[in-house]
Protein backbone atom coordinates (compact mmCIF):
# COMPACT_ATOMS: atom_id res chain seq x y z
CA UNK A 1 0.00 0.00 0.00
CA UNK A 2 1.44 3.45 -0.89
CA UNK A 3 2.48 5.57 2.06
CA UNK A 4 1.35 8.74 0.29
CA UNK A 5 -1.23 9.15 -2.44
CA UNK A 6 -1.91 12.36 -4.33
CA UNK A 7 -5.18 11.98 -6.17
CA UNK A 8 -6.19 14.36 -8.94
CA UNK A 9 -4.56 17.36 -7.28
CA UNK A 10 -5.45 20.64 -8.93
CA UNK A 11 -4.66 24.17 -7.85
CA UNK A 12 -6.02 27.20 -9.60
CA UNK A 13 -5.20 30.81 -8.73
CA UNK A 14 -8.02 32.74 -10.39
CA UNK A 15 -7.67 31.89 -14.09
CA UNK A 16 -4.13 30.46 -13.74
CA UNK A 17 -3.82 26.71 -13.24
CA UNK A 18 -0.64 26.05 -11.27
CA UNK A 19 -1.22 22.31 -10.86
CA UNK A 20 -3.49 20.47 -13.22
CA UNK A 21 -5.01 17.17 -12.11
CA UNK A 22 -1.89 15.31 -11.02
CA UNK A 23 -1.90 11.92 -9.31
CA UNK A 24 0.98 9.89 -7.98
CA UNK A 25 1.97 7.55 -5.16
CA UNK A 26 4.95 7.32 -2.86
CA UNK A 27 5.90 3.88 -1.58
CA UNK A 28 7.44 3.08 1.78
CA UNK A 29 11.21 3.59 1.66
CA UNK A 30 11.06 5.21 -1.76
CA UNK A 31 12.89 8.40 -2.72
CA UNK A 32 10.90 10.28 -5.31
CA UNK A 33 12.22 13.28 -7.21
CA UNK A 34 9.79 16.01 -8.14
CA UNK A 35 11.40 17.87 -11.00
CA UNK A 36 10.54 20.55 -13.48
CA UNK A 37 11.54 23.99 -14.64
CA UNK A 38 10.92 27.08 -12.49
CA UNK A 39 7.19 27.74 -12.19
CA UNK A 40 6.30 24.18 -13.21
CA UNK A 41 4.21 23.62 -10.08
CA UNK A 42 6.64 21.70 -7.84
CA UNK A 43 6.45 24.00 -4.80
CA UNK A 44 2.67 24.33 -5.18
CA UNK A 45 2.44 20.53 -5.16
CA UNK A 46 4.70 20.26 -2.10
CA UNK A 47 2.60 22.86 -0.26
CA UNK A 48 -0.56 20.89 -0.99
CA UNK A 49 1.10 17.69 0.22
CA UNK A 50 1.91 19.50 3.48
CA UNK A 51 -1.53 20.99 3.99
CA UNK A 52 -0.06 24.49 3.68
CA UNK A 53 -2.17 25.14 0.59
CA UNK A 54 -5.72 23.98 0.01
CA UNK A 55 -6.16 22.22 -3.34
CA UNK A 56 -8.89 23.47 -5.65
CA UNK A 57 -9.67 19.80 -6.32
CA UNK A 58 -8.25 16.43 -5.37
CA UNK A 59 -7.09 14.84 -2.14
CA UNK A 60 -3.90 13.85 -0.35
CA UNK A 61 -3.72 10.60 1.61
CA UNK A 62 -0.95 9.53 3.97
CA UNK A 63 -0.97 6.05 5.49
CA UNK A 64 -4.38 5.60 3.84
CA UNK A 65 -5.81 8.53 5.80
CA UNK A 66 -7.10 11.76 4.37
CA UNK A 67 -4.82 14.74 5.17
CA UNK A 68 -7.72 17.19 5.37
CA UNK A 69 -9.46 14.99 7.96
CA UNK A 70 -6.63 13.51 10.04
CA UNK A 71 -4.21 16.42 9.82
CA UNK A 72 -2.70 16.27 13.32
CA UNK A 73 -2.21 12.50 13.31
CA UNK A 74 -0.59 12.59 9.87
CA UNK A 75 1.65 15.62 10.42
CA UNK A 76 3.10 14.00 13.57
CA UNK A 77 4.78 11.60 11.14
CA UNK A 78 5.70 14.00 8.34
CA UNK A 79 8.23 16.80 8.12
CA UNK A 80 9.53 19.34 5.68
CA UNK A 81 12.65 21.30 4.93
CA UNK A 82 13.34 23.95 2.36
CA UNK A 83 16.33 26.11 1.60
CA UNK A 84 13.89 28.96 1.10
CA UNK A 85 12.19 28.87 4.49
CA UNK A 86 13.76 30.56 7.48
CA UNK A 87 13.75 29.80 11.17
CA UNK A 88 13.16 32.71 13.60
CA UNK A 89 16.11 35.04 13.07
CA UNK A 90 16.64 36.08 16.72
CA UNK A 91 16.45 32.60 18.18
CA UNK A 92 19.56 30.58 18.93
CA UNK A 93 19.90 27.30 17.07
CA UNK A 94 19.38 25.32 20.29
CA UNK A 95 16.21 27.31 21.01
CA UNK A 96 14.87 26.62 17.52
CA UNK A 97 15.44 22.91 17.87
CA UNK A 98 13.87 22.96 21.33
CA UNK A 99 10.69 24.78 20.34
CA UNK A 100 10.29 22.70 17.16
CA UNK A 101 10.72 19.51 19.19
CA UNK A 102 7.80 20.56 21.40
CA UNK A 103 5.55 20.91 18.35
CA UNK A 104 5.72 17.13 18.00
CA UNK A 105 4.84 14.37 20.39
CA UNK A 106 8.34 12.91 20.75
CA UNK A 107 9.36 10.47 23.43
CA UNK A 108 12.87 11.18 24.73
CA UNK A 109 12.74 14.72 23.38
CA UNK A 110 16.05 15.90 24.83
CA UNK A 111 17.95 12.81 23.66
CA UNK A 112 16.51 13.20 20.18
CA UNK A 113 17.63 16.82 19.96
CA UNK A 114 21.11 15.82 21.18
CA UNK A 115 21.25 13.03 18.61
CA UNK A 116 20.25 15.37 15.78
CA UNK A 117 22.86 17.91 16.91
CA UNK A 118 25.42 15.15 16.92
CA UNK A 119 24.45 13.77 13.48
CA UNK A 120 24.52 17.18 11.81
CA UNK A 121 27.57 18.35 13.76
CA UNK A 122 25.73 21.44 14.99
CA UNK A 123 27.52 21.63 18.36
CA UNK A 124 29.45 24.80 17.51
CA UNK A 125 26.32 26.51 16.15
CA UNK A 126 23.99 25.87 19.08
CA UNK A 127 24.55 29.25 20.74
CA UNK A 128 24.49 31.25 17.54
CA UNK A 129 21.37 33.18 16.57
CA UNK A 130 19.86 32.09 13.26
CA UNK A 131 20.58 35.43 11.57
CA UNK A 132 24.30 34.92 12.27
CA UNK A 133 24.42 31.67 10.28
CA UNK A 134 25.64 31.35 6.70
CA UNK A 135 23.17 30.17 4.05
CA UNK A 136 24.70 26.70 4.17
CA UNK A 137 24.50 26.52 7.96
CA UNK A 138 20.85 27.60 7.86
CA UNK A 139 20.07 24.87 5.36
CA UNK A 140 21.77 22.35 7.61
CA UNK A 141 19.80 23.47 10.69
CA UNK A 142 16.59 23.40 8.66
CA UNK A 143 17.30 19.87 7.60
CA UNK A 144 18.13 18.88 11.17
CA UNK A 145 14.81 20.27 12.39
CA UNK A 146 12.97 18.27 9.72
CA UNK A 147 14.23 15.01 11.20
CA UNK A 148 13.46 15.85 14.78
CA UNK A 149 10.17 13.90 14.90
CA UNK A 150 11.46 10.66 13.30
CA UNK A 151 9.33 11.38 10.20
CA UNK A 152 8.03 8.48 8.13
CA UNK A 153 7.65 10.88 5.20
CA UNK A 154 10.06 13.70 4.53
CA UNK A 155 9.41 16.43 1.98
CA UNK A 156 12.52 18.32 0.91
CA UNK A 157 12.54 21.41 -1.26
CA UNK A 158 16.06 21.77 -2.67
CA UNK A 159 17.72 20.47 0.49
CA UNK A 160 21.30 20.93 -0.66
CA UNK A 161 20.99 24.31 -2.35
CA UNK A 162 23.69 26.68 -1.04
CA UNK A 163 25.59 23.89 0.72
CA UNK A 164 29.25 23.34 -0.05
CA UNK A 165 29.97 20.07 -1.93
CA UNK A 166 31.30 18.28 1.14
CA UNK A 167 28.22 19.03 3.26
CA UNK A 168 25.88 18.32 0.33
CA UNK A 169 27.56 14.97 -0.09
CA UNK A 170 27.16 14.27 3.62
CA UNK A 171 23.44 15.14 3.40
CA UNK A 172 22.91 12.81 0.45
CA UNK A 173 24.70 9.94 2.20
CA UNK A 174 22.72 10.66 5.34
CA UNK A 175 19.38 10.54 3.50
CA UNK A 176 20.28 7.25 1.83
CA UNK A 177 21.33 5.85 5.19
CA UNK A 178 18.10 7.01 6.88
CA UNK A 179 16.06 5.40 4.15
CA UNK A 180 17.99 2.15 4.51
CA UNK A 181 17.74 2.09 8.31
CA UNK A 182 14.22 3.40 8.89
CA UNK A 183 12.49 2.93 5.52
CA UNK A 184 11.76 6.63 5.51
CA UNK A 185 10.01 7.84 2.34
CA UNK A 186 11.24 11.04 0.77
CA UNK A 187 10.00 13.46 -1.86
CA UNK A 188 12.71 15.78 -3.03
CA UNK A 189 12.82 18.71 -5.42
CA UNK A 190 16.20 19.72 -6.77
CA UNK A 191 17.82 21.43 -9.70
CA UNK A 192 20.93 19.33 -9.22
CA UNK A 193 20.30 16.48 -11.66
CA UNK A 194 23.38 14.53 -10.61
CA UNK A 195 22.01 14.56 -7.07
CA UNK A 196 18.61 13.37 -8.25
CA UNK A 197 20.22 10.53 -10.21
CA UNK A 198 22.19 9.54 -7.12
CA UNK A 199 19.29 9.71 -4.66
CA UNK A 200 16.03 9.02 -6.41
CA UNK A 201 14.45 5.69 -7.19
CA UNK A 202 11.88 7.41 -9.35
CA UNK A 203 11.35 10.84 -10.83
CA UNK A 204 8.20 12.74 -11.67
CA UNK A 205 8.62 15.52 -14.19
CA UNK A 206 6.15 18.36 -13.96
CA UNK A 207 5.77 20.98 -16.62
CA UNK A 208 3.08 23.66 -16.72
CA UNK A 209 1.34 21.96 -13.81
CA UNK A 210 1.09 18.54 -15.44
CA UNK A 211 3.03 15.34 -14.99
CA UNK A 212 4.83 14.71 -18.26
CA UNK A 213 6.96 11.79 -17.13
CA UNK A 214 7.05 9.31 -14.26
CA UNK A 215 9.96 6.90 -14.44
CA UNK A 216 13.38 6.03 -13.07
CA UNK A 217 16.11 8.64 -13.65
CA UNK A 218 17.98 6.13 -15.84
CA UNK A 219 14.98 5.46 -18.09
CA UNK A 220 14.26 9.16 -18.50
CA UNK A 221 17.87 9.81 -19.44
CA UNK A 222 17.81 6.89 -21.90
CA UNK A 223 14.63 8.24 -23.46
CA UNK A 224 16.72 11.08 -24.83
CA UNK A 225 18.53 8.63 -27.17
CA UNK A 226 21.23 11.24 -27.70
CA UNK A 227 24.89 10.96 -26.75
CA UNK A 228 27.44 13.71 -26.58
CA UNK A 229 30.48 13.07 -28.78
CA UNK A 230 33.36 15.31 -27.74
CA UNK A 231 36.23 15.71 -30.17
CA UNK A 232 39.53 17.53 -29.67
CA UNK A 233 40.24 18.42 -33.30
CA UNK A 234 43.86 18.92 -34.40
CA UNK A 235 43.15 19.40 -38.13
CA UNK A 236 40.07 20.43 -40.12
CA UNK A 237 37.96 22.03 -37.42
CA UNK A 238 36.23 24.37 -39.91
CA UNK A 239 35.39 21.37 -42.08
CA UNK A 240 33.86 19.63 -39.06
CA UNK A 241 31.76 22.65 -38.12
CA UNK A 242 30.51 22.99 -41.70
CA UNK A 243 29.70 19.29 -41.78
CA UNK A 244 27.58 19.37 -38.61
CA UNK A 245 25.90 22.60 -39.67
CA UNK A 246 25.03 21.18 -43.10
CA UNK A 247 23.65 18.02 -41.52
CA UNK A 248 21.68 20.03 -38.95
CA UNK A 249 23.29 18.27 -36.04
CA UNK A 250 23.24 20.06 -32.65
CA UNK A 251 26.75 20.97 -31.51
CA UNK A 252 28.67 23.21 -29.14
CA UNK A 253 31.99 24.80 -30.12
CA UNK A 254 34.14 25.03 -26.98
CA UNK A 255 37.30 26.31 -28.67
CA UNK A 256 39.65 23.35 -28.73
CA UNK A 257 36.82 20.89 -28.38
CA UNK A 258 33.58 20.41 -30.26
CA UNK A 259 30.65 18.60 -28.61
CA UNK A 260 28.19 17.02 -31.01
CA UNK A 261 24.82 15.56 -30.00
CA UNK A 262 24.11 12.33 -31.85
CA UNK A 263 21.83 9.36 -31.58
CA UNK A 264 23.88 6.36 -30.43
CA UNK A 265 23.22 4.44 -33.65
CA UNK A 266 24.48 7.34 -35.81
CA UNK A 267 27.89 7.62 -34.11
CA UNK A 268 29.81 5.02 -36.24
CA UNK A 269 28.64 6.60 -39.53
CA UNK A 270 29.44 10.08 -38.25
CA UNK A 271 33.00 9.11 -37.27
CA UNK A 272 33.51 7.36 -40.63
CA UNK A 273 32.42 10.53 -42.48
CA UNK A 274 34.64 12.70 -40.33
CA UNK A 275 37.68 10.57 -41.24
CA UNK A 276 36.73 10.57 -44.94
CA UNK A 277 36.79 14.36 -44.96
CA UNK A 278 40.33 14.40 -43.59
CA UNK A 279 39.36 15.76 -40.19
CA UNK A 280 41.87 14.65 -37.59
CA UNK A 281 41.10 14.46 -33.87
CA UNK A 282 43.51 13.74 -31.02
CA UNK A 283 40.95 12.84 -28.39
CA UNK A 284 37.41 11.51 -28.41
CA UNK A 285 34.96 10.90 -25.58
CA UNK A 286 31.36 9.73 -25.80
CA UNK A 287 29.04 10.61 -22.94
CA UNK A 288 25.70 8.86 -22.49
CA UNK A 289 22.61 11.05 -22.04
CA UNK A 290 21.91 12.12 -18.49
CA UNK A 291 18.89 13.33 -16.55
CA UNK A 292 20.28 16.81 -17.05
CA UNK A 293 19.81 16.40 -20.82
CA UNK A 294 16.23 15.38 -20.21
CA UNK A 295 15.70 18.35 -17.90
CA UNK A 296 17.11 20.80 -20.44
CA UNK A 297 15.01 19.21 -23.14
CA UNK A 298 11.85 19.72 -21.07
CA UNK A 299 12.87 23.17 -19.91
CA UNK A 300 13.31 24.21 -23.52
CA UNK A 301 9.67 23.31 -24.05
CA UNK A 302 10.46 20.49 -26.42
CA UNK A 303 8.49 17.87 -24.54
CA UNK A 304 5.87 17.83 -27.27
CA UNK A 305 8.48 16.21 -29.55
CA UNK A 306 9.22 13.34 -27.18
Amino acid at each position, binding site marked *: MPILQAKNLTKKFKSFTAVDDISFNLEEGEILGLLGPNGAGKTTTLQMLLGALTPTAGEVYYFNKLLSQDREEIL*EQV*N*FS*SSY*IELPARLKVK*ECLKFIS*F*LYNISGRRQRVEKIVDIFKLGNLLNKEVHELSAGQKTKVNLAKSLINFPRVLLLDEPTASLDPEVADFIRSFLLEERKKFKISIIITSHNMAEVEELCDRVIFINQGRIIADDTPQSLARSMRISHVELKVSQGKEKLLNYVKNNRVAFKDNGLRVIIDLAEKDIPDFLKNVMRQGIVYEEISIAKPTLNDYFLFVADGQNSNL
Partner: protein
Amino acid sequence: MAIHRIYAVLLRHFYDSFRTVDRLADIFYWPTIDLLLWGLTSLFIKSFAPELPQITLIIVSGIVFWLFVRRAQLDMSISLLGDLWDRNLINIFVSPLKFSEWIASFIILGFLKIILSFSFAAALAYILYEVNIFYFGFYLIPFALLLMMTGWWVGMFVNSLIMRYGTRIQNFAWSIVMVISPFSAIYYPLSILPDWMQKIAALVPTSYIFEGAREVISYGALDPRKLLYSFILNLIYISLGLIFLKKSFKKMLNRGLLSLY
Protein backbone atom coordinates in the same frame (compact mmCIF):
# COMPACT_ATOMS: atom_id res chain seq x y z
CA MET B 1 -5.63 20.81 22.68
CA ALA B 2 -2.09 19.55 23.30
CA ILE B 3 -0.21 21.40 26.02
CA HIS B 4 3.20 20.61 24.51
CA ARG B 5 2.29 22.31 21.23
CA ILE B 6 0.96 25.42 22.99
CA TYR B 7 4.15 25.43 25.04
CA ALA B 8 6.20 25.23 21.82
CA VAL B 9 4.64 28.40 20.42
CA LEU B 10 4.99 30.14 23.80
CA LEU B 11 8.64 29.14 23.94
CA ARG B 12 9.31 30.46 20.42
CA HIS B 13 7.82 33.88 21.25
CA PHE B 14 9.25 33.97 24.77
CA TYR B 15 12.80 33.67 23.38
CA ASP B 16 12.04 36.31 20.77
CA SER B 17 10.43 38.74 23.21
CA PHE B 18 13.34 38.88 25.58
CA ARG B 19 15.99 39.19 22.89
CA THR B 20 14.36 41.90 20.82
CA VAL B 21 14.69 45.46 22.03
CA ASP B 22 11.47 46.74 20.47
CA ARG B 23 9.43 43.97 22.12
CA LEU B 24 10.95 44.84 25.50
CA ALA B 25 10.22 48.50 24.80
CA ASP B 26 6.57 47.59 24.32
CA ILE B 27 6.49 46.12 27.81
CA PHE B 28 8.45 48.75 29.74
CA TYR B 29 9.30 51.82 27.67
CA TRP B 30 5.88 52.99 26.47
CA PRO B 31 4.13 52.57 29.85
CA THR B 32 6.91 54.64 31.39
CA ILE B 33 6.59 57.40 28.80
CA ASP B 34 2.77 57.46 29.10
CA LEU B 35 2.90 57.58 32.88
CA LEU B 36 5.43 60.40 32.89
CA LEU B 37 3.69 62.46 30.24
CA TRP B 38 0.08 62.16 31.37
CA GLY B 39 0.82 61.78 35.05
CA LEU B 40 2.72 65.07 35.08
CA THR B 41 -0.02 66.68 33.01
CA SER B 42 -2.55 65.59 35.64
CA LEU B 43 -0.40 67.10 38.41
CA PHE B 44 -0.32 70.35 36.48
CA ILE B 45 -4.13 70.36 36.05
CA LYS B 46 -4.55 69.60 39.75
CA SER B 47 -2.32 72.56 40.66
CA PHE B 48 -4.81 75.07 39.24
CA ALA B 49 -8.00 73.02 39.68
CA PRO B 50 -7.98 71.88 43.33
CA GLU B 51 -11.67 70.94 42.97
CA LEU B 52 -10.43 67.92 41.00
CA PRO B 53 -8.43 66.11 43.71
CA GLN B 54 -8.86 62.72 42.02
CA ILE B 55 -7.61 63.80 38.60
CA THR B 56 -4.23 62.07 38.97
CA LEU B 57 -5.87 58.82 40.11
CA ILE B 58 -8.31 58.96 37.17
CA ILE B 59 -5.65 59.60 34.53
CA VAL B 60 -2.99 57.28 35.92
CA SER B 61 -5.45 54.43 36.44
CA GLY B 62 -6.73 55.07 32.90
CA ILE B 63 -3.20 54.66 31.54
CA VAL B 64 -2.61 51.48 33.51
CA PHE B 65 -6.01 49.97 32.61
CA TRP B 66 -5.58 50.79 28.91
CA LEU B 67 -2.43 48.64 29.02
CA PHE B 68 -4.68 45.57 29.33
CA VAL B 69 -6.40 46.37 26.04
CA ARG B 70 -3.29 47.45 24.18
CA ARG B 71 -1.02 44.63 25.29
CA ALA B 72 -3.58 41.89 24.74
CA GLN B 73 -4.14 43.14 21.19
CA LEU B 74 -0.54 43.93 20.40
CA ASP B 75 0.86 40.61 21.57
CA MET B 76 -1.62 38.71 19.47
CA SER B 77 -0.75 40.73 16.36
CA ILE B 78 3.00 40.96 16.92
CA SER B 79 3.22 37.19 17.41
CA LEU B 80 1.66 36.65 13.97
CA LEU B 81 3.79 39.37 12.40
CA GLY B 82 6.91 37.88 14.03
CA ASP B 83 6.33 34.59 12.22
CA LEU B 84 5.69 36.43 8.96
CA TRP B 85 8.81 38.58 9.31
CA ASP B 86 10.86 35.47 10.09
CA ARG B 87 9.24 33.48 7.25
CA ASN B 88 8.55 30.88 9.90
CA LEU B 89 4.80 30.41 9.49
CA ILE B 90 5.15 27.36 7.29
CA ASN B 91 7.38 25.65 9.88
CA ILE B 92 4.58 26.15 12.39
CA PHE B 93 1.76 24.93 10.17
CA VAL B 94 3.40 21.89 8.66
CA SER B 95 3.57 20.63 12.24
CA PRO B 96 0.52 19.09 13.96
CA LEU B 97 -0.24 22.41 15.69
CA LYS B 98 -3.97 23.17 15.58
CA PHE B 99 -5.38 26.58 14.75
CA SER B 100 -7.07 26.72 18.17
CA GLU B 101 -3.75 25.93 19.90
CA TRP B 102 -2.06 28.71 17.96
CA ILE B 103 -4.67 31.25 19.07
CA ALA B 104 -4.62 29.94 22.65
CA SER B 105 -0.86 30.34 22.81
CA PHE B 106 -1.13 33.97 21.66
CA ILE B 107 -3.70 34.66 24.38
CA ILE B 108 -1.56 33.02 27.06
CA LEU B 109 1.55 34.86 25.88
CA GLY B 110 -0.33 38.16 25.94
CA PHE B 111 -1.63 37.41 29.43
CA LEU B 112 1.88 36.69 30.76
CA LYS B 113 3.27 39.88 29.23
CA ILE B 114 0.34 41.89 30.57
CA ILE B 115 1.11 40.72 34.09
CA LEU B 116 4.69 41.88 33.62
CA SER B 117 3.74 45.19 32.05
CA PHE B 118 0.92 45.84 34.53
CA SER B 119 3.10 45.05 37.57
CA PHE B 120 5.77 47.40 36.27
CA ALA B 121 3.30 50.21 35.48
CA ALA B 122 1.47 49.77 38.80
CA ALA B 123 4.74 50.01 40.72
CA LEU B 124 5.82 53.05 38.70
CA ALA B 125 2.45 54.77 39.26
CA TYR B 126 2.88 54.30 43.00
CA ILE B 127 6.51 55.48 43.01
CA LEU B 128 5.88 58.56 40.85
CA TYR B 129 2.43 59.69 42.00
CA GLU B 130 1.55 57.57 45.04
CA VAL B 131 -1.35 56.19 43.00
CA ASN B 132 -2.25 52.74 44.29
CA ILE B 133 -3.91 50.83 41.46
CA PHE B 134 -5.10 48.25 44.00
CA TYR B 135 -7.36 50.99 45.29
CA PHE B 136 -9.97 49.39 43.03
CA GLY B 137 -9.83 46.22 45.13
CA PHE B 138 -11.96 43.34 43.87
CA TYR B 139 -13.10 45.34 40.82
CA LEU B 140 -9.58 45.10 39.42
CA ILE B 141 -10.20 41.46 38.42
CA PRO B 142 -13.33 41.96 36.23
CA PHE B 143 -11.86 45.20 34.88
CA ALA B 144 -8.67 43.43 33.80
CA LEU B 145 -10.49 40.45 32.29
CA LEU B 146 -13.00 42.54 30.36
CA LEU B 147 -10.32 44.90 29.07
CA MET B 148 -8.20 41.95 27.94
CA MET B 149 -11.22 40.47 26.17
CA THR B 150 -11.47 43.69 24.18
CA GLY B 151 -7.76 43.44 23.31
CA TRP B 152 -8.29 39.86 22.13
CA TRP B 153 -11.14 40.60 19.73
CA VAL B 154 -9.41 43.66 18.33
CA GLY B 155 -6.31 41.43 17.91
CA MET B 156 -8.42 38.81 16.13
CA PHE B 157 -9.73 41.39 13.65
CA VAL B 158 -6.25 42.82 13.06
CA ASN B 159 -4.78 39.32 12.58
CA SER B 160 -7.59 38.41 10.20
CA LEU B 161 -6.72 41.43 8.08
CA ILE B 162 -3.00 40.61 8.17
CA MET B 163 -3.77 37.04 7.07
CA ARG B 164 -5.71 38.42 4.13
CA TYR B 165 -3.43 41.25 3.08
CA GLY B 166 -0.01 40.30 4.48
CA THR B 167 2.61 42.54 6.02
CA ARG B 168 1.74 45.52 3.81
CA ILE B 169 -0.95 46.41 6.35
CA GLN B 170 1.21 45.62 9.38
CA ASN B 171 0.79 49.15 10.70
CA PHE B 172 -2.75 48.17 11.73
CA ALA B 173 -1.15 46.13 14.52
CA TRP B 174 -0.22 49.36 16.30
CA SER B 175 -2.92 51.71 15.08
CA ILE B 176 -6.34 50.04 14.93
CA VAL B 177 -6.81 49.73 18.70
CA MET B 178 -6.41 53.49 18.96
CA VAL B 179 -9.63 53.91 16.97
CA ILE B 180 -11.67 52.69 19.93
CA SER B 181 -9.77 54.73 22.51
CA PRO B 182 -11.72 58.02 22.08
CA PHE B 183 -14.98 56.05 22.43
CA SER B 184 -13.68 54.26 25.52
CA ALA B 185 -13.66 57.50 27.52
CA ILE B 186 -10.41 56.53 29.21
CA TYR B 187 -9.67 59.90 30.82
CA TYR B 188 -12.97 61.77 30.60
CA PRO B 189 -16.64 61.04 31.34
CA LEU B 190 -18.83 59.74 28.52
CA SER B 191 -21.15 62.71 29.03
CA ILE B 192 -18.66 65.09 27.40
CA LEU B 193 -18.79 63.17 24.12
CA PRO B 194 -21.09 64.48 21.37
CA ASP B 195 -24.33 62.54 20.93
CA TRP B 196 -23.17 60.55 17.89
CA MET B 197 -20.01 59.50 19.75
CA GLN B 198 -21.99 58.47 22.81
CA LYS B 199 -24.11 56.21 20.60
CA ILE B 200 -20.98 54.51 19.28
CA ALA B 201 -19.44 54.38 22.77
CA ALA B 202 -22.48 52.41 23.95
CA LEU B 203 -21.32 49.63 21.61
CA VAL B 204 -17.71 49.75 22.84
CA PRO B 205 -17.20 47.41 25.82
CA THR B 206 -14.30 49.38 27.29
CA SER B 207 -16.45 52.51 27.75
CA TYR B 208 -18.40 50.71 30.51
CA ILE B 209 -15.18 49.78 32.28
CA PHE B 210 -13.61 53.23 32.31
CA GLU B 211 -16.92 54.80 33.25
CA GLY B 212 -17.25 52.19 36.01
CA ALA B 213 -13.73 52.87 37.25
CA ARG B 214 -14.58 56.54 37.69
CA GLU B 215 -17.74 55.52 39.59
CA VAL B 216 -15.59 53.45 41.95
CA ILE B 217 -13.30 56.45 42.47
CA SER B 218 -16.23 58.80 43.14
CA TYR B 219 -18.65 56.55 45.06
CA GLY B 220 -16.66 53.48 46.07
CA ALA B 221 -18.92 51.15 44.01
CA LEU B 222 -20.31 50.76 40.50
CA ASP B 223 -23.48 49.69 38.80
CA PRO B 224 -22.84 45.96 38.13
CA ARG B 225 -24.85 46.19 34.92
CA LYS B 226 -21.87 48.02 33.43
CA LEU B 227 -19.75 44.89 33.88
CA LEU B 228 -22.53 42.76 32.41
CA TYR B 229 -22.96 44.97 29.31
CA SER B 230 -19.24 45.02 28.77
CA PHE B 231 -19.07 41.22 29.09
CA ILE B 232 -21.96 40.61 26.65
CA LEU B 233 -20.52 42.99 24.06
CA ASN B 234 -17.07 41.43 24.41
CA LEU B 235 -18.55 37.97 24.01
CA ILE B 236 -20.35 38.98 20.82
CA TYR B 237 -17.23 40.60 19.35
CA ILE B 238 -14.98 37.68 20.33
CA SER B 239 -17.39 35.28 18.60
CA LEU B 240 -17.39 37.44 15.48
CA GLY B 241 -13.60 37.83 15.72
CA LEU B 242 -13.12 34.05 15.88
CA ILE B 243 -15.38 33.51 12.86
CA PHE B 244 -13.52 36.18 10.88
CA LEU B 245 -10.15 34.79 11.98
CA LYS B 246 -11.07 31.24 10.98
CA LYS B 247 -12.34 32.42 7.59
CA SER B 248 -9.19 34.47 7.03
CA PHE B 249 -7.04 31.46 7.95
CA LYS B 250 -8.92 29.37 5.36
CA LYS B 251 -8.41 32.11 2.81
CA MET B 252 -4.70 32.20 3.67
CA LEU B 253 -4.48 28.43 3.10
CA ASN B 254 -6.24 28.91 -0.22
CA ARG B 255 -3.51 31.30 -1.30
CA GLY B 256 -0.75 29.27 0.32
CA LEU B 257 1.29 30.07 3.42
CA LEU B 258 4.29 30.93 1.28
CA SER B 259 2.44 33.70 -0.51
CA LEU B 260 1.85 35.87 2.51
CA TYR B 261 5.16 37.65 3.05
